[in-house]
């Protein structure tokens, strides 16, 4: 579980996060949504410990990040997995090398133990015949799966995903969404996803935080988002005619 209490973050004169408080529960997919420039990426980087807030606290299962020593922070980092928007796979390594990398860096496992673990996670993300391919030789969807495999290979407690569906076709996007949700539930991970994808919001948004101008403007579930009267949320989520009609149908059905 990650608890965020009144965090503020500025860059120069730009006050990006203006006091966000929320809780991300484990075993469920928590989504952060909002327009470009609303502070989503800065918020995610604060959660990852890449930016330190000027005010407020972020606690990981009760441990406040600001009070941790350098070593404790490094240990905490090893409990985090991250799936980047562009996958961020290491070009010079094969798929297998990318997934094995955290194990080589942070564990004392033997080669065969590492190989077993790599084979297991690659199989878990449904990639069985790409071990020796380089990132440039596989599709965007496969790259995302490798990124997920690399993120979960160390059995993280916390999984962060920045726009995991960007650049993917709708069918592959759903596969990636479902995979993240399955892994989250299976391993009881606290998963936080930064997304613009409304399909993800509807499908896997067990908890959704809507950010606007650096503030939390709304929070709820994917069920609540149909019912909300919050104008900022409805303007953002139902900006397309298709989603407006879907919402209309949902509300009519409910009544």
């Amino acid at each position, binding site marked *: 579980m990650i608890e965020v209490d009144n965090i503020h973050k500025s860059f120069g004169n730009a006050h990006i996060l203006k006091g966000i408080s929320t809780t991300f529960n484990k075993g469920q997919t928590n989504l952060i949504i909002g327009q470009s420039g609303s502070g989503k990426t800065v918020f995610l980087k604060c959660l990852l410990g890449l930016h330190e807030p000027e005010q407020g606290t972020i606690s990981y299962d009760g441990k406040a990040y600001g009070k941790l020593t350098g070593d404790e922070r*490094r240990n905490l980092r*090893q409990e*985090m997995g*991250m799936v980047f928007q562009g996958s961020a796979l290491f*070009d010079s390594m094969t798929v297998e090398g990318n997934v094995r990398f955290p194990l*080589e*860096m942070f564990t004392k496992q033997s080669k065969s133990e590492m190989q077993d673990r790599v084979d297991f996670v690659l199989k878990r993300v449904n990639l069985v015949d790409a071990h020796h391919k380089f990132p440039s030789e596989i599709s965007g969807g496969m790259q995302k799966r490798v990124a997920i495999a690399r993120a979960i290979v160390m059995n993280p407690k916390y999984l962060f995903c920045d726009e995991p569906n960007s650049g993917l076709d709708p069918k592959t996007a759903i596969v990636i969404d479902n995979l993240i949700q399955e892994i989250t539930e299976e391993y009881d991970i606290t998963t936080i996803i930064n997304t613009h994808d409304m399909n993800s919001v509807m499908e896997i948004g067990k908890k959704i935080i809507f950010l606007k101008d650096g503030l939390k403007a709304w929070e709820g579930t994917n069920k609540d988002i149909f019912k909300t009267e919050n104008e900022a949320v409805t303007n953002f989520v139902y900006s397309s005619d298709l989603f407006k009609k879907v919402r209309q149908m949902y509300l009519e059905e409910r009544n």
Partner: protein
Amino acid sequence: MNYVASIGSYAIMIKEVFKKPTKWRIMRSLILKEIDELIFGSLGILIFISFFIGGVVAIQTALNITSELIPKNLVGFATRQSIILEFAPTFCSIIMAGKVGSYITSSIGTMRVTEQIDALEVMGVNALNYLVFPKIVALLMYPFIIAVSMFVGILGGWMAATFGGHSTSADFAEGLTLDFMPFHVTYAFIKTLVFAFVLATIPSFHGFYMKGGALDVGKASTTSFVWTSIVIVILNGILTQLLLG
């Protein structure tokens, strides 16, 4: 003011490079990979350039000896001094700033643009140690290719002078040994080691802290070449005054 800030950031970067080292098992393979890329990968171009520059220095010197009073062994002497004192350590380093420097900046810069450096940092890896330290260690072998460059440059000079009919082999050899000061070779290798550090760190700095996209990687590579060259030229002046002045 920007320059002062950049020098400060560079100093902080150097400090970070030596903190929290990567596991030796991984570091060893990174160093070997960098030696292959940066040292052996540059050997061919430096041999090619050194051979012809050595030849041209010999021909130019011979063509400019118009007085009968000037001894014929000057061709060998001038070739040796030019190659050992300046061409091999300094001008080869400027060539390397273009070849190796732009490679370092663009490879690290591309990692920055594609979030690979962020991925390292999120995992808790000291990205500066992981990326820059192997390059510094690999370039400790830089004097090796400069020694090869010295040898090939003088060889090129000898071939151009003798086969071009500008000097006899005996005159050239006499010039090579004339007033030879072993400290000049030491001076050249001291410079080379200092330039090796510059070649590893300034391009890394420009790659690591770059911002933007693919176009900016190209700009960072150009800026890195310019600054690496400027620093090499300034340090060349300072070291020459300190060691030979």
